[in-house]
């Protein structure tokens, strides 16, 4: 009974827990519930991915209504993988969040934080699990609305303006997706993704379909912060509470990338979309521009959190590069990078959250000498940074390697150079932090800076070690990513 309903439980569990958190009101009760739910979701995600990989795609009909009338949840290798990533990040972020939230948001408002975080988690899981285009829009808005609230909880008043800016851009993006889905519905009369794919194949030349496709892609590009639609991201990540930055940086753009993969490969005919419209060239160009521009901007930032926020824009460029390359190694690299970058950025932002807790600042000049005072925290940040650069034996190396293979297979020498050049730029912005933390003398302070509390260090190190683990044991990430890539490309041919 329970096993058959796992796809629904995956999304419904945090959805039910969210209002319960609101009713519990006590900080410890809300935190315990949220953490327990995130761990249960992780267990469900493992079971679902296992079934999707070994038995085949899972189809679940919400409320027993058969598609195309009812809403269908469909879990295959690709979204099973993304679900696993989301749940894993939530499961480590929540234990980490407790101390950080007490400090940055306060005990009285903490239960509200957990309520909204669970809603955001629900929205992201829903986008990933659903097989219905309109349902995807609804979950997109659930996750967006809750992330605006989460960002506005930051201590700095600029968190409010950052949240407002994100709200305006995010709503435009969401509405674009809505328009696009409307066009597709007008052309086909269905909203189920598989059904859409069937019917669109015959009428893919119509202008309605093309316009709808364009609207959906632009809307999702806003959500995933594809250069030059990334303007909301740096402020949002910089001024959000530390735990929120960790969660959003590791999940929300990744889910938007997933949604783009789903539309570009499953719903639309890939050969048509990429061939006739030349989407591949557009994506590669924007991705390349994003990698160069955002990496250079990251280098000149004095706020370390903002520097890594720009780095996120650059890394999204790598994922889109994988989509644009349109071959098996490239797509494998893109999907694996989605996972690996979440691990690297998660570890980095967690370490920055620890520093923000002790130092009350993440400005570069304030971090001088911090490496000797907070050795464990900085150690995790360095591992995350190495993975971000793509040093061998870290997770980031694996995905960049596959992207490189993809570029070489297409004989895109310029792109191959760009992938390496982007890594060199990453070396610079990671090195700035390492240099300040280890090589500059610590300023004289009244009290020495203490190491972060264990409750925050353990999750940080879990993610840092995951970067090392997945850098050596590639069966899981590359195995699943290549199966997902084969699925996407296979559906096309």
């Amino acid at each position, binding site marked *: 009974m329970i096993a058959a309903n796992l796809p629904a439980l995956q999304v419904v569990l945090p959805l039910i827990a969210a209002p319960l958190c609101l009713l519990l009101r006590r900080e410890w009760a809300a935190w315990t519930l949220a953490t327990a739910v995130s761990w249960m979701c992780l267990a469900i995600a493992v079971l679902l991915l296992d079934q999707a990989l070994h038995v085949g795609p899972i189809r679940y009909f919400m409320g027993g209504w058969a598609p195309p009338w009812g809403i269908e949840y469909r879990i295959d290798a690709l979204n099973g993988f993304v679900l696993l990533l989301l749940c894993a990040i939530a499961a480590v972020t929540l234990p980490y969040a407790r101390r950080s939230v007490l400090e940055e948001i306060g005990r009285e408002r903490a239960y509200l934080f957990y309520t909204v975080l669970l809603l955001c988690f629900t929205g992201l899981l829903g986008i990933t699990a659903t097989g219905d285009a*309109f349902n995807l829009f609804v979950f997109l808005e659930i996750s967006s609305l809750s992330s*605006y609230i989460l960002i506005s909880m930051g201590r700095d*008043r600029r968190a*409010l*303006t950052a949240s407002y800016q994100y709200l305006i851009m995010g*709503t435009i993006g969401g509405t674009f997706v809505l328009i696009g889905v*409307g066009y597709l519905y007008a052309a086909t009369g269905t909203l189920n993704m598989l059904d859409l794919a069937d019917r669109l194949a015959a009428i893919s030349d119509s202008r309605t379909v093309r316009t709808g496709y364009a609207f959906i892609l632009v809307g999702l590009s806003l959500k995933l912060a594809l250069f030059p639609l990334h303007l909301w991201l740096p402020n949002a990540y910089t001024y959000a509470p530390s735990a929120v930055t960790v969660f959003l940086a590791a999940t929300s753009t990744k889910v938007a990338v997933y949604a783009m993969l789903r539309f570009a490969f499953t719903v639309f005919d890939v050969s048509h979309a990429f061939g006739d419209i030349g989407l591949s060239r557009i994506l590669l160009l924007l991705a390349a521009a994003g990698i160069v521009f955002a990496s250079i901007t990251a280098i000149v930032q004095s706020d370390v959190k903002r520097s890594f926020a720009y780095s996120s824009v650059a890394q999204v460029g790598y994922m889109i590069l994988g989509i644009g390359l349109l071959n098996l190694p490239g797509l494998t690299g893109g999907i694996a990078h989605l996972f690996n970058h979440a691990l690297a950025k998660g570890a980095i932002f967690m370490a920055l959250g620890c520093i923000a807790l002790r130092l009350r600042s993440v400005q570069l000049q304030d971090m001088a000498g911090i490496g000797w005072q907070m050795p464990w925290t900085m150690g995790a940040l360095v591992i995350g940074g190495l993975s971000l650069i793509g040093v061998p034996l870290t997770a980031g190396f694996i995905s960049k390697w596959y992207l490189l293979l993809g570029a070489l297979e297409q004989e895109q020498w310029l792109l191959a150079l760009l992938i390496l050049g982007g890594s060199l730029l990453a070396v610079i912005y990671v090195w700035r932090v390492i240099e300040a933390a280890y090589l500059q003398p610590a300023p004289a302070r009244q009290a020495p800076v203490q190491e972060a509390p264990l409750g925050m260090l353990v999750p940080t190190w879990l993610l840092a070690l995951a970067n090392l683990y997945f850098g050596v044991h590639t069966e899981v990430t590359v195995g699943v990513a290549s199966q997902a890539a084969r699925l996407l490309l296979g559906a096309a041919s």
Partner: protein
Amino acid sequence: MALGLYSYWVVIVLMMAGFYIVIASSNLIKKIAGLNIFQGSVFIFYISLGKVEDGTAPILASGYESYSNPLPHVLILTAIVVGVATTALAVALVARIHDAYGTIEEDDIHGQDESL
């Protein structure tokens, strides 16, 4: 033909007008109003999609053969709820911004925070 689809013309005009207000206005409340017009145009678009020529309301009754499609209407009910939630949240944010900055003009806010 072109006039027969006049509801779509209305949609396009509203969409562009709303979008323009969002981009061009520097008053945070006016931006929200523009966003609402923009979203409203999409609602009208969906609702006109469901209209079947000579069709009546989708309630089974004797004497009627052709009915309008109710599904887009149901979909847009959901989207309207989302729109209301977005507006409520945006207005609440603007109220907090006003508390923090004492203004809701984007230029003044930028002036107070050099980095934005």
